[in-house]
């Protein structure tokens, strides 16, 4: 294909644009002059504020503008709604107090040669509330706002979270008790950041029961359990010879600031500390009066050099069991450093010294049971209550 050589086509090919709009005189288009005639309404305002009585503004003035050569008298009328018009040629005044309902539609009409040229305008009438920048739902709204009536959420709609402490005022804040947790109530995992700093404040959980089964590994890991009253460790109610409870830990339960009570309502098993090594080698140090209730109480010390009981509390030690057996290891004291009274309020006490020091009790040794038997060098000695 040979290149273009002639000057005209080169000029045309290089030109832009090649096609331009064609202006057509109006009078050359049939019907266009009439079609261009029109009427429109200009208004001094579009809204009355105030649902009853005087409104702001009190009146709105409408002015009909004739366009495209339109000429003729303007007729004003109400199309929809109700209100009082005050026509004055091409103008018309509408008094807000006369408008009933929420709007009024007014028509201006010019008739030329049997052709009506109309223009319409709608004016709104709103309550006083519409003029306010913000609304107090408590005091300014009667009744309850339905969800469907709330169409604008303002700046709150742009947020993906709401800080109840800083972004709400009044009743809805961070201290609010939320009784309807919605989806939060059904979560099976509560992340730390969902409860604030990750720690439940004291007193947050103040009622109900924490079921151990809901804790990881059936284990409570920690260093201390404290309370103003007792700590109850409930056992099974069945008669199976299982351990009542097990407290494991690298550290012994060495101190009880309050009253430590082990109760067992049945008689299936005694309170048996068989692995006293876990209780600091069998050394039960009681700062207060210790009371052991139950059918039997046995302390079996298997470590050398430690006494079974040691207390300096004024109340001493009270053992109230029907059948008490104490056996120390060789070289260990059965009881030592007990400055107060040791009371055996029981029917049977068996203190078995395995060769160590029997005890060092500086206070009274009281046996409240029926008889007291002592085996001294292979000879039994029996003391009756009457003897004492």
């Amino acid at each position: 294909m040979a290149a273009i050589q002639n000057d005209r086509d080169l000029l045309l090919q290089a030109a832009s644009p090649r096609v331009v709009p064609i202006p057509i005189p109006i009078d050359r288009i049939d019907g266009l002059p009439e079609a261009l005639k029109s009427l429109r309404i200009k208004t001094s305002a579009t809204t009355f504020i105030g649902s009853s009585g005087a409104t702001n503004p009190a009146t709105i003035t409408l002015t009909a503008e004739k366009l495209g050569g339109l000429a003729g008298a303007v007729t004003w009328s109400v199309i929809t709604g109700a209100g009082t018009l005050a026509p004055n040629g091409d103008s018309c005044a509408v008094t807000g107090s006369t408008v009933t309902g929420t709007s009024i539609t007014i028509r201006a009409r010019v008739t030329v040669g049997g052709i009506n040229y109309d223009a319409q305008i709608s004016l709104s009438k709103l309550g006083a509330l519409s003029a306010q920048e913000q609304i107090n739902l408590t005091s300014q709204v009667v009744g309850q706002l339905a969800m469907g009536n709330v169409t604008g959420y303002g700046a709150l709609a742009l947020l993906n979270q709401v800080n109840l402490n800083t972004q709400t005022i009044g009743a809805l804040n961070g201290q609010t008790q939320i009784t309807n947790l919605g989806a939060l109530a059904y979560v099976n995992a509560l992340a730390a950041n969902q409860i604030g700093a990750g720690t439940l404040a004291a007193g947050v959980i103040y009622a109900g029961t924490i079921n151990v089964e809901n804790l990881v590994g059936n284990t409570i890991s920690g260093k201390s359990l404290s309370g103003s009253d007792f700590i109850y460790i409930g056992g099974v109610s069945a008669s199976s010879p299982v351990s009542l409870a097990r407290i494991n830990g690298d550290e012994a339960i060495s101190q009880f600031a309050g009253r430590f009570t082990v109760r067992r309502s049945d008689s299936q098993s005694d309170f048996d500390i068989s692995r006293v090594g876990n209780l600091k080698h069998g050394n039960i140090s009681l700062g207060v009066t210790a009371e052991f209730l139950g059918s039997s109480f046995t302390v079996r010390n298997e470590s050398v050099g430690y006494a079974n009981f040691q207390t300096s509390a004024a109340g001493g030690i009270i053992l109230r069991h029907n059948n008490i057996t104490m056996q120390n290891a060789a070289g260990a004291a059965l009881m030592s450093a007990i400055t107060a009274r040791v009371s055996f309020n029981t029917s049977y006490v068996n203190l078995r010294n395995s060769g160590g020091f029997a005890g060092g009790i500086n206070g009274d040794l009281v046996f409240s049971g029926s008889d007291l038997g002592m085996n001294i060098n292979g000879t039994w000695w029996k003391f009756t209550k009457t003897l004492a």
Partner: protein
Amino acid sequence: MTDAEYQAWLVRDGYRVALIEVDTDIPRYLSTVAYTTLPTDTPANRMHLPCVAGGFAFSERLSLDGNPAISAGDIELSNEDGALDAWLSEVWVNRAIRVYIGDVSWSRADFRLEFSGVVADLTSSAAGRLNIVLRNKLERLNTPVVEAVLGGTTTNKDRLLPVLLGECHNVEPLLVDPANHEYQVHSGPMERVIEVRDNGVPLSNTTAALSTGKFRLGGTPAGTITVSAQGRTPYQNTAGNLVRTLATAYGTPSERLTPADLDTVSLDAFNVLNQQVLGMSLPDRANVLQCCQQIAASVGAQVVMSRQGLLRLVKVALPGVGAPVAIGPSDYEAGSLSIKQRIDVVAGVKLGYCRAWSVQANLDTGIPPAHKDLFAQEWLTVTARDTAVAAAYRLYAEPAQVDTLLLRAADAQAEADRRLALWKVSRTVYSLRGYAHLLTLELGQPVTLTAPRWGLDAGRQGIVIAVQRDWIAGRCVVEVLI
């Protein structure tokens, strides 16, 4: 026989004879004196009727005003006894005629073809004479370019099929299929459809069929369809090639020239020197010769035939192309040198170019005003002026417009400048009656004319613009433009 031997024979004034062959239905072989070929000649033993009364003279001329000039001649036959009267009932018109010049003693093979043309007519100027009116072979181009019509049943059925050569702007094509909005630009394969327009607005939804020279619109046109296009393939757009194409591919088939009728060497040389691009649209009846002359004239040239009947293009330019032939007082008859013509000086040349082949005035369509003006203007123009010459010769400043088929302003301006340079000086045509050795001069051939008069003492270069040869008398009247 060599050219030198032939030239020497012309000079020594031997017994010249002209053998004339006419391709009538019954071929006629005539001569100025009785001559029969030898048995060893080819053809052998052919007798030539010695009925030529006078000599054989033929004149040819280059036009200086741009209008084509067909050379003409006449051969007078003796018919005192009416023996040749029957020839008048035969068809002589447009029959080929050849004139061979040689010595009556030569064998046929040594004769030289000095004229190859056609018979314009056979008439009688007197009771005892018949006259063969001659035209050179350009007369064979004096035929319609095409005679094929569209046919069919449409209103255009009798319209000639269009021809488009080179590149043309805004041609109105022929509607060949109204149902399919199909138009034809050229009656055959064409090079390119540049742009189709509807009332000047360019159309994009057209489909060109270059192999048939047609295109289709994508929808109903709103107004006049025009097209800018490049025509016949193999695509040619220079004067030499366009003339060659027209002369050999168009016109009445029996009269078309063949490649053997072209002076190929001359045309090739002309083409090298004249690379201006042109275009021609022929939507209606046109004459091949006129078209060739119009193409040649666009670059300041003319279509001529050599003595041997070979088509060539000759440009009127000074100095001429090639080595000049020296013509001095010894080469022409004493007292025969004269001033034949003084050429009017011009102070300006205005050329029209880049024709809008379909002028569309007052287009009321969505095109820029400048484009509307472009479509409304048939010609773009360039002008070359010489105010000093205009003042000296008291000439009008605004010259008459001469239209060309040039396409580019640069080419048109260069041609205008060339023509102004040629004609803004006083030019003179000298005429002389030369001796026989000047019989071989060709139109456009450069010469150096020397004479004791008119400032020609030292010799001045010019070109041959006319030659009238009398082969029997051994004289030629030569006109030289200086």
